[in-house]
């Protein structure tokens, strides 16, 4: 216990437990005090009779004020710090009173507006401006609080009090009450709409400017205090709000909470178009692991973390109207039934957009609307004319009214597919695909999205929102980039080299890395299609095709295909591939021989398909089978003749045994005369020597070979 402050220590402990507790670990924490909060704390910790909490706190504080009113708390704070922060901060009661003064002035700021109510709360004469020593003492109290929170490594929250530049001394208290819990609960909606991710370090001024330009529905959901700051030109309050927005996004974990700081579970509507049923699901959060959930007396397992779970018998009308569902989580850990009430909440919107979901096999809310996506839309009746007109504009055709899907009274269901993007009024904006309000990369040949790594041959486009862009866009700190009328900058044409590049667009710093190569040297090729043949027949047993799974290349199947790779086991042997046609060089002379005396020259030509599809690509060899079409006799041999070499190839399909008993032809062609002279020196595959010798002997017998062999 620190000397001199024991009187207020009940309040200090209660305020610490209420505001600075392990539930706030690593999150910005605010001593956001108003009269209602003080009553709540008083009631919870039994500090004063019902309705007298504020008076009790003030009485406790007033009893200890001195000539320099805050000095006792100053001394206590210094001692507490040097003692290593034992117990609760001994000055939280005084800080609470200074914040209460800021809360009472309700948005007005300035020394005069603040000190008068503060003096009243402290029991000092109304006039006189700043209490004596206030400037020094108050900054010490907030700084010691910051030191304590920091020394605990954020286990009880992260400090947020900020003096600001415009109103010395007053900023500390004001910074705690600008955003009320209800406002903070709205921030995830704003961050999501903005396209900002959890933990992103965006300048507060950028966030503030975007909040000012947010759709009216979102903007007006904030408290009057915040809206008046957004509407007004008060630099001091704007600066504080900007700083808080920055802190909130920086420490946002991506979850949604209510104004009492309880985690919310988002409920999503689903539409089973087939059976005409509208239901609701939620994604099972991690803290539901192994738990059971009770809805209206019905208890069931929570399901797998991360997967959809259906709400039993949901009140669709309530959910469409933005209502919430209460449920109880029953944790069965260590054999105890620990109960926790929680709320499932959905979005409040007169237009609800659902996309077909692969996982659920139904249309479900929560998917980002993009081009070419079939959507089911539930619209409040009063908005139907405007909504159908907007859908027509986006899809180019009249949206189809879904007769089978029957939403509750006052709503209608439609189906449409946007093929273009356009700006719509705020109340219909959810129908249209839209880009993030923040500067962002789009497209590009991205090889790693998380690290913004792209191929050098395909850097992305930079997309900026021209409406909120307040500064020039720079590349690597010196090149100024000029967005086009749609807010796009094509980085492709800039010839960016491999390496890191930094872009500054409206306060948002974006880094991209360009690489020439990213491929793994030894990747696995896992998508093999497979099928089997049964009992030696070409009868399919199983085919694993698209969508049906994959098998590895060493799986036991008769046929495996991956791209142009084909593995056929035992089948090719059965299918008895015939002898392939020879391929011969395009140069030289080519003669086809039939029975002795039959010969025709063939002229190799570039295959028709090749010359048609690949002009300029000349054949280097030619496929004999294609040239055989014009030969008038049964071809037996092909002669491939150059100046220094003559080869003979046996042609497929020629009979194994040929009877050469015919008479000598009365006339032979010039092709025969030309080739016959060199046939004796022809080179032949050793497998065909026997047949060739038989053929050649017959030709000799008939006197068709001009010179004696060899």
């Amino acid at each position, binding site marked *: 216990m620190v000397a001199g402050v024991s009187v207020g220590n009940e309040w200090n402990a209660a305020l610490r437990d209420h505001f600075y507790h392990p539930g706030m670990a690593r999150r910005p924490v605010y001593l956001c005090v108003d009269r209602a909060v003080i009553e709540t704390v008083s009631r919870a910790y039994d500090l004063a009779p019902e309705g007298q909490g504020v008076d009790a706190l003030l009485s406790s504080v007033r009893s200890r004020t001195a000539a320099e009113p805050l000095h006792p708390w100053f001394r206590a704070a210094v001692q507490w710090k040097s003692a290593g922060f034992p117990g609760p901060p001994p000055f939280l009661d005084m800080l609470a009173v200074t914040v209460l003064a800021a809360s009472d002035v309700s948005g007005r700021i300035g020394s005069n507006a603040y000190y008068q109510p503060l003096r009243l709360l402290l029991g000092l004469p109304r006039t006189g401006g700043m209490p004596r020593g206030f400037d020094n003492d108050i900054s010490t109290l907030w700084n010691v609080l910051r030191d304590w929170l920091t020394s605990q490594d954020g286990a009880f929250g992260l400090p947020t009090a900020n003096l600001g530049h415009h109103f010395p001394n007053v900023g500390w208290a004001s910074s705690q009450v600008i955003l009320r819990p209800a406002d903070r609960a709205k921030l995830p909606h704003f961050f999501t709409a903005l396209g900002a991710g959890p933990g992103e370090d965006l300048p507060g001024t950028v966030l503030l400017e975007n909040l000012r330009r947010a759709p009216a529905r979102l903007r007006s959901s904030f408290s009057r205090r915040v809206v008046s700051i957004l509407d007004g030109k008060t630099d001091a309050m704007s600066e504080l709000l900007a700083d808080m927005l920055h802190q909130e996004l920086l420490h946002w974990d991506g979850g949604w909470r209510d104004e009492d700081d309880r985690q919310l579970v988002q409920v999503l509507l689903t539409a089973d178009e*087939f*059976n005409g049923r509208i239901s609701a699901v939620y994604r099972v959060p991690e803290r539901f692991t192994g738990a059971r959930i009770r809805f209206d007396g019905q208890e069931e397992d929570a399901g797998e973390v991360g997967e959809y779970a259906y709400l039993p018998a949901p009140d669709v009308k309530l959910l469409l109207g933005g209502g919430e569902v209460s449920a109880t989580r029953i944790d069965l850990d260590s054999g105890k039934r620990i109960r926790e009430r929680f709320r499932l909440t959905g979005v409040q919107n007169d237009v609800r957009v659902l996309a077909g979901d692969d996982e659920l*096999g*139904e*249309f479900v809310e929560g998917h980002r609307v993009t*081009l070419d996506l079939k959507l089911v839309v539930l619209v409040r009746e009063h908005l139907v004319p405007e909504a159908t007109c907007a859908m027509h504009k986006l899809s180019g055709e009249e949206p189809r009214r879904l*007769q*089978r899907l029957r939403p509750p009274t006052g709503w209608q269901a439609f189906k449409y597919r946007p*093929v273009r993007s356009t700006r719509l009024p705020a109340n219909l904006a959810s129908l249209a695909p839209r880009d993030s309000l923040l500067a962002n990369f*789009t*497209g*590009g040949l*991205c*090889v790693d*999205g998380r690290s913004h790594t792209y*191929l050098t*041959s*395909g850097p*992305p486009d930079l997309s900026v929102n021209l409406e909120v862009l307040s500064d020039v866009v720079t590349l690597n700190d010196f090149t100024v980039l000029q967005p086009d009328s749609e807010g796009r900058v094509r980085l492709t044409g800039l010839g960016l080299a491999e390496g890191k590049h930094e872009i500054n667009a409206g306060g948002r710093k974006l880094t991209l890395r360009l690489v020439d*190569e*990213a*491929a793994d040297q030894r*990747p696995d*090729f*896992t*998508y*093999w299609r497979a*099928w089997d043949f049964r009992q030696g027949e*070409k009868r*399919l*047993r199983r*085919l694993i*095709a*698209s*969508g*049906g799974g*994959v098998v590895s290349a060493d799986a036991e199947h*008769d046929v495996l*295909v991956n*791209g*142009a*790779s*084909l593995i*056929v086991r035992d089948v*090719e042997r059965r299918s008895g591939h015939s002898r392939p046609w020879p391929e011969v060089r395009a140069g030289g002379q080519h003669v086809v021989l039939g029975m002795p005396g039959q010969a025709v020259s063939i002229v190799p030509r570039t*295959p028709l*398909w*090749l010359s*048609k*599809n*690949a002009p300029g*690509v*000349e*054949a*280097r*060899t*030619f*496929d004999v*089978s*294609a040239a055989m079409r014009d030969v008038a006799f049964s071809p037996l041999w092909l002669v491939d003749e150059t100046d220094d070499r003559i080869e003979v190839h046996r042609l497929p399909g020629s009979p194994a045994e040929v009877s050469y008993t015919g008479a000598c032809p009365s006339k032979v062609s010039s092709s025969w005369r030309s080739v016959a002279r060199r046939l004796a020196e022809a080179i032949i595959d050793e497998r065909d020597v026997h047949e060739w010798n038989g053929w050649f002997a017959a030709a000799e017998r008939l006197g068709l070979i001009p010179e004696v062999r060899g």
Partner: protein
Amino acid sequence: MTGHDLLLGWMSERHKGSFERFRETWTWLFREEDPRWWRRTLNDLQTLGHVEIDGGRWETATPTITTLPNSGGYALLCGKRTDRLVRAIEGNTHGIRLARPVAQSAGPSVQLIEYEAISALASACADLGIRFERVVSDRLLESSPTLNDLLLSRKIPDQLPGGVQPTVLGDDLNFHEQENCRGTQPGAYCVELFRQQRYFYRHGAPPAPLFECGLQVVRYAELRRVRAGQQRTPVKSSPVEWDRDTGQLRVAKGRRLPELFERATVLRSGFLPTWDNGLRRWVYHNIDEEFSQLLQNKLAS
């Protein structure tokens, strides 16, 4: 370098990914095109042997060099095509050379390979870690199941999945919305879940089985059923035409061949089918009579 070459290069460097990422990249590369064509491009890349698709994901395929029939001395490079691989082929010591890439309008450039002898080609592939195939087109078709077998392999319970109303294949071979359709009549159906289209064919009313196959398998099955119903006899005539003079195989609009057959057919040349405006037909190249006959048998049985 064409947009399709950049796309294949990107896929090769990335190796695998989701349809969603592919669609985003496609839309960025081909911003002037109808955004619905991304899926056609992905299918074409599979047909060309560059990628394999499974569910909502894709993966580049094994780099492969296959010989072609009636090729004029060229082989074809398929599958993953990284710059590193291209450089390795350029530096080989087996006498194989990269021909000048031949651009095609709907897919990446056709990369032909010049070779002196098949044995040298096979050795080069072994050295470079590339798979070598002899005339994979003909072997693939020969090993392929028939159309009936493709259907039978994908028999599913007799109800369409999920709570999304199916669209129905019409006479124009496109799928159309039909009020209160439950997919219980004989016909072909499409169910779209997020970005994934699933196709179904029903030969008879329940309890007759339902089959889930690729788009073109379903179309060809339905074509056959409708024509058989009109003729009251099994269909004998073929929906594909072969032209002896040009070595072309031709099919009417909406009748691109079922994927596995189309892959075999396209790997005869390395070129995707081209649309002939005069003939009003899709044209496949470098097809001989034997191949055409076998293909027609597979489609008819």
